[in-house]
C-alpha cells in the first residue's frame, strides 16, 4: 500500500531547541496511525508539522521532507490554506465556534467560497452523518454548538473538519477531555472514517492506541524509536524503551 504521507529525515527546531530528530515514517492511506510517547517527546510537534500548523510559531524551523502524495508540503508554491483543507485537524479540547451547529459545519466551505444554500445544507447533513452526530442534532441545527455535550462537541469539530473534504485527518488527543462512552464513540467513528480518510492520532491513552489503530509509532525525546503494526508493538516491541514505556515502567 502506498503511503499517503512520507516523512524523511525531519529535524524540527523551536529556536535552538531540537524537538524532532531525523524522523522518517510512512503513513499509510486509509489506515489509522497512532503516535504515543511521554509528554514533550515531539509527537504533537510531529503531527502539527504534517499540515504546517507549526509555521506560525516564532523561530520554528523544519529540515527534511514531508511528502503528501509524493509532493513536498514545505516546497515552493504550496498553498498552506489548501494544504490544511486536504490535511484537517481535530484538537484536544473540543473547540466549536460560538455559532449554531449548522454554521460550525459549513464554516469551512463558506470560507472556501461556497454560497449555494442547497449545497451547504447537503454538506452539513453529510458531514454530520459522517461524524455520527446527525441523528442527535438534526432537529436542532440552529442550536449553539456550545450547547452540546463534550463528546458531541468533539464530533461536531470532526464534522467541521470533514466538511471541507480533507484527505487526511490529524487528531491531537481528541478524546482526552471526553468520558469513556464518548471516547468509544469517537473511536468507532474513526473506524468508519478510515474508509475515506487517512487518520493520524496522537494519544496519551495507550489502550486507545492499541484499540483504535493499525500502526503505532513510539516517540521519545524527539526520536521515532519504534514504528510498526499495533498488535506487534503492544505484544512484542523490539526496543526496550518501547517496552518500558508501554508497560508503564518509564518516566
Amino acid at each position, binding site marked *: 500500500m502506498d503511503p499517503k504521507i512520507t516523512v524523511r529525515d525531519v529535524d524540527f527546531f523551536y529556536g535552538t531547541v531540537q524537538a524532532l530528530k531525523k524522523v522518517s515514517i510512512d503513513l499509510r492511506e486509509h489506515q489509522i496511525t497512532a503516535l504515543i510517547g511521554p509528554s514533550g517527546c515531539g509527537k504533537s510537534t510531529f503531527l502539527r508539522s504534517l499540515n504546517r500548523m507549526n509555521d506560525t510559531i516564532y523561530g520554528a524551523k523544519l529540515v527534511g521532507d514531508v511528502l503528501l502524495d509524493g509532493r513536498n508540503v514545505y516546497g515552493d508554491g504550496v498553498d498552506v490554506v489548501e494544504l490544511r483543507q486536504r490535511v484537517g485537524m481535530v484538537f484536544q479540547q473540543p473547540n466549536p465556534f460560538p455559532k449554531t451547529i449548522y454554521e460550525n459545519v459549513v464554516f469551512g466551505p463558506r470560507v472556501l467560497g461556497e454560497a449555494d444554500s442547497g449545497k451547504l445544507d447537503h454538506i452539513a447533513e453529510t458531514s454530520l452523518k459522517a461524524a455520527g452526530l446527525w441523528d442527535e442534532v438534526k432537529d436542532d441545527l440552529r442550536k449553539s454548538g456550545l450547547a452540546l455535550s463534550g463528546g458531541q462537541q468533539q464530533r461536531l469539530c470532526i464534522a467541521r473538519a470533514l466538511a471541507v473534504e480533507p484527505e487526511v485527518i490529524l487528531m491531537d488527543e481528541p478524546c482526552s477531555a471526553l468520558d469513556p462512552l464518548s471516547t468509544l464513540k469517537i473511536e468507532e467513528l474513526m473506524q468508519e472514517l478510515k474508509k475515506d480518510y487517512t487518520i493520524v492520532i496522537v494519544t496519551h491513552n495507550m489502550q486507545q492506541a492499541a484499540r483504535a489503530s493499525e500502526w503505532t509509532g513510539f516517540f521519545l525525546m524527539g526520536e521515532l524509536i519504534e514504528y510498526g503494526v499495533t498488535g506487534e508493538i503492544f505484544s512484542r516491541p523490539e526496543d526496550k524503551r518501547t517496552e518500558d514505556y508501554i508497560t508503564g*515502567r518509564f518516566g
Partner: protein
Amino acid sequence: MPRQSYDMHLRELQDELLVLSSMVEKAVAWSINALRDRDLDLARQVIADDSKVDGKCIEIEEKAVQLIVTQAPVAGDLRLILSIIHLLDELERIGDHAEGIARIAVMIGDEPPLKPLIDIPRMADKTRDMLKRAMDAFVRRDTAEAIRINAEDDDVDALYDQVYRELLTFMLEDPKTITRATRLIWVAHNLERCADRVTNICERTVYMVTGKIDGLRASNY
C-alpha cells in the same frame, strides 16, 4: 520507579506458581513411592491432595485475571501473565497424572509384584528433575536451559520404550501377567505425559522471553 505494587503482584504470582509446581512435583514423587512401597495410605493422600492442587490453580488464575483487568498488561508483562495461565494448565495436568498413578497404586493394592520397579522410578526422577529445572528456567527467563530441558524429553521417552518392551515380554511369556503389566504401562504412560507437559512449560518460557510461539520440538509420542 513507577508501578512498584504492580511489579510486586507479578512477583507474587510467580512465587505462587512455584508453590504450585512444588505441590505437583511432590505428588509425582509420592505417587511413585506409594506404588513402589505399596503404601496405600500415601496413595490415598496423593488422591486427596489433588483437590488442593486444583484449588491452588484456581486461586492463581483468579489473581492473574485480576492483574489483567486492573493493570491492562501489555508486551512482556502480558506474555508473562499469559504464560503463567498456560503453566497452570500444564501443572494441573501433571498433578492429574500423579493422581492417576496413585489410583493405579490403590488398584494394584496388595497384588504380588510383577517385578521390582527400576525404570519407572527412574522415569519419575527424571521427570521431576526436568520439572524443577523448567520452573527455575521460567522464573530466571533462561531460554537456553529451557531448550536443553526440552531435549531431555527424549530420555524419558527412551525409558518409556524400555518399560513398554519389557512389560510386553512379560505378557507374551505369561498371559496371566497381562492385568498387572498393563497397569504398570499406564503408570509409565502417565509419567511420559508428565514429561511432555514439562516440554510445554519450556516452550512457554521461550515465548515469554522472545514473544515467539514456536513449538521447540515435537515429542515422539
